[in-house]
């Protein structure tokens, strides 16, 4: 019984992690059709913001919840203004440019902070379930994933900003004739997506530590989740995270984390073979 509870907890944690990792990317990709290969490095930047501010004496929660999103969000807007905005509609070129950005960021952070691993201790300690110890921080991760999904759904569905965003996503030309400033919408979208990625990176930092090349460890999972999810931001992220997270966590239980990662990819490849437009390309097509 206790063991079953632990397994469920771990699966939920894996799913939440995928939701958090892929959320920012899904917003940017779903709305702007821009694939940001530097996503992993945006996470890394969020992580570094947290670790460096904690070392400078800032409260950990302020660093995670406020500083990391702000820093990465602003960075995202700068990147959008300097590079991305010239490349709308040229999807392949955006891929190449953001890949360049990713290399530049790895190199830059290595130059500034050195190629060493930094970390802070995981807060909140752990609770005991039967014979097992579970970190309370895992519950925080799950809560944030749920919060993200609910908040994104509410904003897109019920606010004016959400309405404008959805309209621009569906038909930018038509939205513009109705008086929407699509340049501003794209800039804000990229900024918000980046800020969310920063938050995810911040949340990860106490668990994984940070190192300049850490993005590589997350980028594969993030992309494959977004791609498998398909066009809908929320339903896609949720359904893909649930499927892939469960598969990889179950294999991890059986054979170890490296095979868990491989199983995630294999599951995604098979899903894409059956549903080339992603899960929401066939099922839940009209959802957000």
């Amino acid at each position, binding site marked *: 019984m206790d063991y079953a509870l632990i397994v469920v907890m771990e699966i939920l944690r894996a799913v939440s992690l995928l939701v958090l990792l892929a959320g920012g990317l899904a917003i940017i990709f779903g709305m702007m059709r821009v*694939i940001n290969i530097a996503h992993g490095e945006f996470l890394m930047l969020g992580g570094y913001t947290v670790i460096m501010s904690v070392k400078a004496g800032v409260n950990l929660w302020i660093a995670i919840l406020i500083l990391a999103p702000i820093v990465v969000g602003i960075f995202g807007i700068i990147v959008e203004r300097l590079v991305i905005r010239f490349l709308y509609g040229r*999807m*392949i070129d955006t891929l190449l*440019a953001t890949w*360049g950005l990713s290399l530049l*960021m790895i190199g830059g952070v290595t130059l500034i902070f050195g190629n060493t691993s930094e970390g802070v201790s995981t807060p909140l300690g752990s609770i005991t379930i039967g014979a097992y110890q579970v970190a309370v921080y895992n519950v925080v991760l799950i809560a944030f994933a749920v919060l993200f999904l609910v908040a994104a759904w509410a904003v897109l569905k019920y606010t004016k900003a959400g309405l404008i965003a959805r309209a621009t996503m569906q038909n930018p030309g038509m939205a513009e004739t109705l008086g929407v400033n699509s340049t501003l919408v794209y800039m804000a979208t990229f900024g918000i997506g980046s800020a969310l990625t920063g938050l995810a990176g911040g949340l990860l930092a106490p668990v994984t530590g940070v190192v300049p090349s850490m993005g590589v460890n997350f980028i*594969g999972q993030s992309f494959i989740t977004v*791609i498998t999810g398909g066009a809908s931001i929320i339903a896609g992220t949720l359904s893909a995270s649930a499927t892939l997270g469960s598969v990889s966590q179950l294999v991890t239980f059986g054979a170890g984390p490296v095979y868990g*990662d491989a199983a995630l990819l294999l599951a995604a*490849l098979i899903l894409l073979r059956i549903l080339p437009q992603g899960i929401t390309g066939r099922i839940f097509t009209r959802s957000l």
Partner: protein
Amino acid sequence: MEKPVLRDPGFYVMVATGFAVLFGAPMVFDFFEIMQMTQYVVLSVFALSLAYIWGFGGILSFGQSAFFGLGAYTFAVSAINMGDTTIPLALAFIIPALFGVALGYFMFYGRISDVYLGVVTLVVTLILWKLINHTAGPEYAIGKSRLGGFNGIPSIPIVNSPGDASADLDPVQLFQFFMVVLIVVYVGLRFLIGSDFGRVSVSIRENETRTSLLGYDVRRHKVIVFAIGSGIAGFSGAMWATYQTFIDPNAFSLEMSAKALIWVMAGGVGTLVGPIVGVIGLQYLSLKLGEMELLNNFVILGFILIVLVLALPKGVVPSIRMWALQGWELARQRRSGAPQGKPVASDV
């Protein structure tokens, strides 16, 4: 419209240059410079593999290093086990090509479109890189060869003359052998691109739907193109392994894939000369900048890639060709005293 290969003077110029370097370089350059040039030759073959599938098949692979690494490891493991290097060299083409067929089947028969394709190849590369990094323990061995995980495989045999495992090629012979490979790959690809098969793949690049409506099996065609590219990449991996006599999981790394893309982009997508120019130019540049020890390689590569995408999306060779044509047209008009119109770039 491409000219028939045998009527294109550029083709003869390239082959002649190739042979001149093949025989001339060992007389002109010293030992160290030959070693350096060997590296450019190996990487040029690698760049050509991507230049072919991207420029002439419209397949943008972000995972070319997966095949490069696979070829390198195939060669290393089989050469250590067999001693002789003839069969391992063949295997280094065949096994990555087969892997390319398997992966290509999943991607192209799943009708995964271009951007998704890039991401899937990227992820496959990452997973292979992770898996191979994980094989450090002694239990991961194939025959006599331990995979070595992040430590890599040391003392990989140097290519020997066929059938005689003790007759290793010396560095100059190795350079010449690699030059022959480069010339063969270049000539082979030129003829392949000029053939009926090649024309169909170019038409797939231009318009996939129209090609399939004309009755060509686009999916099968793309799998074949992808597999050929994978095989060549694998072979260049084997060349890299025997050149360094050492291979580690970095052969699978994203940096390696990124480099291939940068060379092809810099040189010009849709040409075969461009990527070779790209390799030589950028490797030389990165060597010189690296000596200054001011910036690390990632910063340089990343910066070059961004600038290329923003400023020179067509690449160096096509841009120069276009400028030359415009200049020539302008000069001709001046001479003939014709009214100066807007120069028109003709597509050659």
